[in-house]
């Protein structure tokens, strides 16, 4: 790891102020991706601005029609929250499937979304539920947030403060794991808002995306058969040691099918 300056601001306002002008500085959330990259010397920020002790960023608020998760809320807290389990059980289940126990106690919702790892779980829920991302500057709609491989709509120095997930009628997330990393080779989040269905897919493309054919078919008829009938095109899907685009395309349908089955239970 290269040397860096370490900062521990007390508020998100201070955090945003600290990063100003430091072009090679990074916010440190749970550190489950960034610290690994630094240890491998693939990432060498000049400054780390640790958000770990900013209390206002870590909260779960459930209102009638939305679950708002503070950016620094750990996966384990979302998974274990009875309020989230009640409002959007699929979201709690997704958080409980991320990484391993250690990762879930460090990794954060905001960190995962800001990183836009092509195989991260949260982005599937952000898109599947049509979440709104609140930052230090503005609110960003889910559909405009993920812009590419590790790329988002966030501007330099912009900090996610919370993410608001609308409560669906029913939803489920199914993930086919990479056997080695346990990240998603394909993860599909299906959410039914009463006739209007959203499908968020992670692991399969440069960043998470919505799958229009599945959404259309499931909006018409929310059944396993409707999902099974959709043949996804492999064009543009990720290709690596573990899965070809064809295999990923096939798995999108399979995971969607299983998610619908789970949502209907």
């Amino acid at each position, binding site marked *: *790891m*290269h*040397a860096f300056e370490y900062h521990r601001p007390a508020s998100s306002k201070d955090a945003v102020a600290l990063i100003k002008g430091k072009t090679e500085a990074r916010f440190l959330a749970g550190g489950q991706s960034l610290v690994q990259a630094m240890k*491998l*010397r693939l990432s060498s920020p000049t400054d780390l601005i640790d958000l770990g002790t900013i209390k206002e960023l870590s909260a779960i608020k459930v209102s009638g029609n939305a679950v708002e998760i503070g950016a620094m809320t750990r996966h384990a807290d979302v998974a274990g929250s009875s309020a989230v389990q009640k409002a959007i059980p699929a979201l709690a289940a997704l958080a409980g499937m991320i990484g391993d126990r250690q990762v879930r106690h460090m990794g954060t919702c905001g960190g995962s979304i800001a990183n836009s790892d092509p195989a991260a779980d949260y982005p599937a829920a952000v898109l599947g539920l049509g979440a709104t991302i609140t930052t230090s500057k503005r609110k960003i709609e889910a559909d405009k947030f993920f812009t590419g491989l590790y790329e988002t709509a966030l501007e330099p120095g912009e900090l996610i403060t919370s993410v608001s997930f609308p409560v669906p009628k029913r939803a489920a997330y199914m993930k*086919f794991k*990479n*056997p*080695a*990393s346990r*990240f998603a080779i394909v993860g599909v989040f299906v959410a039914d808002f009463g006739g209007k269905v959203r499908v968020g897919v992670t692991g399969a493309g440069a960043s998470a995306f919505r799958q229009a054919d599945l959404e259309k078919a499931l909006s018409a008829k929310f059944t396993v058969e409707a999902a099974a009938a959709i043949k996804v095109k492999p064009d543009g899907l990720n290709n690596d*040691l*573990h*899965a*070809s685009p064809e*295999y990923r395309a*096939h*798995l999108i349908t*399979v995971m969607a099918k299983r998610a619908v089955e789970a949502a209907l239970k």
Partner: protein
Amino acid sequence: MSAPLIGARVQRKEDYRFLTGAGQYTDDVSMQGQTYASFVRSPHAHAVIKKISIEKALKSPGVIRIFVGKDLADAKVGGLPCGWLITDVKGQPMKEPPFPCLAQGKVRHVGEKVAVVIAETQDQAQDAAELVKVDYEALPAVVDPKKASSSKPIHESAPDNVCYIWSIGEKAKIDEAFKGAAHVTRLEFLNNRLIPNAIEPRAANAQYSRSGEDYTLYVASQNPHVERLLMTAFVLGLPESKVRVVAPDVGGGFGSKIYLYGEDVVVTWASKQINRPVKWTAERSESFLSDAHGRDHVTVAELAMDKDGKFLAMRVITTANMGAYLSTFASCIPTILYATLLAGQYTTPLIYCEVTAVFTNTAPVDAYRGAGRPEATYVVERLVETAAREMKIDPAGIRRKNFIREFPYQTPVALQYDTGNYEATLKAAQRLADVSGFEKRKADSLKKNKLRGLGYACYIEACGIAPSNVAGSLGARAGLFEAGEVRVHPTGTVTVFTGSHAHGQGHETTFAQVVADRLGLGMEQVEVVHGDTSKVLFGMGTYGSRSIAVGGTAIVKALDKVVAKGKKIAAHLMEAAESDIEYDRGVFKVAGTDKKKTFGEVAFAAYVPHNYPLDKLEPGLNENAFYDPANFTFPAGTYVCEVEIDRDTGKTEIASFIAVDDFGKIINPMIVEGQVHGGLTQGIGQALTEGCQYDKSGQLLTGSFGDYCIPRASDVPSFQLDTRETACTHNPLGVKGCGEAGAIGAPAAVMNAITDALGVRDLAMPATAQTVWKNLQENRHARI
């Protein structure tokens, strides 16, 4: 009188320290004035080094010295030796190109060491290593062993990249037998390359003492004496007395820590140059790139049978990838430890095996848990299972028809099996596996859209390579005995020194059980010491499941000497004839009387010899022994695996796994079960998840746990284990060894089950979900 300890499930003495973080590993050792080394490694698989510029790195904060290959050459530091000379089919010695500790003018695989930076801290060493500028002229690389001989030479001394072509058996006679066969089964397959991944990465920490003019090397090694012998005699040109090698707690090895590595030599040599201790601990990325890998065979195997499925002959042609250099025991793995096991459990009368060992631009390949024997078992058991399917014979039936049933049995491939009962392990495994209920389970699986398959593997392994003179005639350059010492203290407690080395196996418990049981002492009275050349008289270390059979026997021999001397002392104390003294569980008795002396009383007399036959007997009670076995030991067993394959995703679940092993006498069943669990998991890993991959240019694609998948606990079932026992006939404990069996038998059992489920002849390992899914797509309309 204490209960017998041999055969008891004694909890492991060492676990408290391991589980509470009190273990002392090489990286835990820090010495006064400690410095840290970081190696600059080649990003190219094959390149000429045009220039190395270290000026900028030298100015980096904390840097003490930087050494390159030329510095070692100028100091006459030699290359790494190979411990086994294979003589080829023409009677010529194998090609042994130089294996420098730091690259000399050329690099031959990604990750090869080009320079070492020594600095005050680890981070400073790494920062500076990034500033060492190396100009390379890239050369074409070869990764595929089948293409090696037609590729650009990697070493001057091996222009066709062939290390040797070796064979065993009479080819003409066997070709003839194939002509007359009623049926021939033929398979071509890869035995996938594996990366060992011990939980503790390799590490070395060396100190030079100006006062003693000697070195101390702490190193994560499976065999400290061999490390010392190779380093002093062949590389540094020092007397053994000038180097103390300590392999303290070591976190796993699986073979990868048998070898002498360049890093160990470099830090040892450098510690004198800078007159400060030098420590290096591999990062996980370095382990992936530079630990010796395992397996990597390309094989064509054929089995000839008569019309009833009786085996007539076997023909096996293998190309074995050695990697870029010959690691310490690389040459004997695909020959002596592979071809000699091709008889398996069967009476196949004629066997021919030809092995071409080639160099490629990949990390060196050497022994990895099983070492040659998993490859042999895979050949035999895939062939046998496929033959049964082709001939429509029950797979267990074809095995029974061909089992060796009389012992000793001389195989056509040099080995003589002393004992075994293959019917017993097969029968027990079939019962545990409920083979007769399989068809119903298969039908139930299908209702869940899953394909179910069942596969057998009847493996044999040869443990404890021996005897030394025979191994020597086959090319071994080292002895294969083991040494042990039993030091009885004045109060009757005992310290046992063994040349074996424990790096997870639990020797501190198992060996203590043997000693406590034989002497009739409590476990707490026996301490086992290993891993330090300054404490242990000599040793050949731990590999090839040899520790209890060879190391344990050396201790038993020393114990026998202790008891024999104790009888002399007891006879004097009780004024009886030595021939009348009996020793039974801690007590010396005069036969037919009630006179007795405890072990403690005799030990005390030996060290406080006031009433002692000083004219006839030396004081003290301290004996050592060297044991060179008369033969290998031959553990064997039957594994039955059932898999369930998800037709939607191709993912394979191991539905059940039954292992019935014959390890001879078992000292601690709990420890043996742990060894079997670990071995099976590694074998299942080879079959389902693990596959080292390089791209065509020689870049390692599976260089982290993100891409290289070692199985997790959730990937394996709850194993069902049982044992059957035929005691080894040529060691006093009747033991055979258990460390590698699981990794040897499991891959074939799993792949036999998967091919059964899919209804295909063969499928490449690892059978990942994608591989199986592709196969399901391709064979959708063409099942056999």
